[in-house]
């Protein structure tokens, strides 16, 4: 199964296909995200429904992605985060820096309500 990228208006939703975000896939994860950011998109949702485990390489790739997004004034919501991954986010205090929402639908709704509020 390939990782999926889909679009809902201006929001890019990236769903990695791999079960483990680790050293094996961290580079391809990061380069995929760099491509998406370079395509000009600003609003992202990272759907981690298939990811059940993350190690230091995966965490590093996420942090580098967040840094790049920050530089490009982009934003990112995480959704469908499994318990072990959430545990690692909490342990690394990453949960205080990122926005985690229960589902893809909630994340889209969050972006859209933000947009409505700004209008």
């Amino acid at each position: 199964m390939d990782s999926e990228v889909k679009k809902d208006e201006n929001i890019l939703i990236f769903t990695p296909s791999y079960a483990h975000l680790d050293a094996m896939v961290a580079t391809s994860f990061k380069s995929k995200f760099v491509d998406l950011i370079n395509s000009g998109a600003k609003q992202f949702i990272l759907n981690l429904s298939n990811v059940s485990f993350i190690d230091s390489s995966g965490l590093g790739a996420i942090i580098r992605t967040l840094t790049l997004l920050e530089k490009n004034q982009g934003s990112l919501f995480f959704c469908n985060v499994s318990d072990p991954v959430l545990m690692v986010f909490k342990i690394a205090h990453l949960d205080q820096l990122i926005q985690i929402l229960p589902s893809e639908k909630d994340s889209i709704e969050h972006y859209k309500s933000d947009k409505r509020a700004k209008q």
Partner: protein
Amino acid sequence: MMALTYAGKQNLIFFGLVAFAAIFSVFLFHTTNQKVIVFKEAEGFFNEKDYKQAIMLYEKSLKLGMPINKVGPKLAISYVTINEMQKAIPVYKLYLNENPKDSLVRLEYAKVLTWLGNIKEAEDEYNQIEAEDKK
């Protein structure tokens, strides 16, 4: 009983050794194969969020000789996820013994020690992370 000639004895030893090597190879293949099968089953349960089954099979794969490098972090975080922190401790110790530079797993270990109230040990781990970061 018929007495064996010198050549006969040599043949017997030779075939005995061949038979032993063959049986040992089958045993080795079976064990190696089994640990991989058990590990893959554990991964399946882990991915399906059935952490109790995953733990049982990760432990079994370790006993069958699966390296701690492959099993450790997932086994430990499974214990943490189902709130059996105490059982995660020996797994973290074993893994970090072989992977002393894995700062994320050491951070997990330090947090678990903190949650369990082992503040002094946790402090030692945090200091080690800091020392490793400065390198």
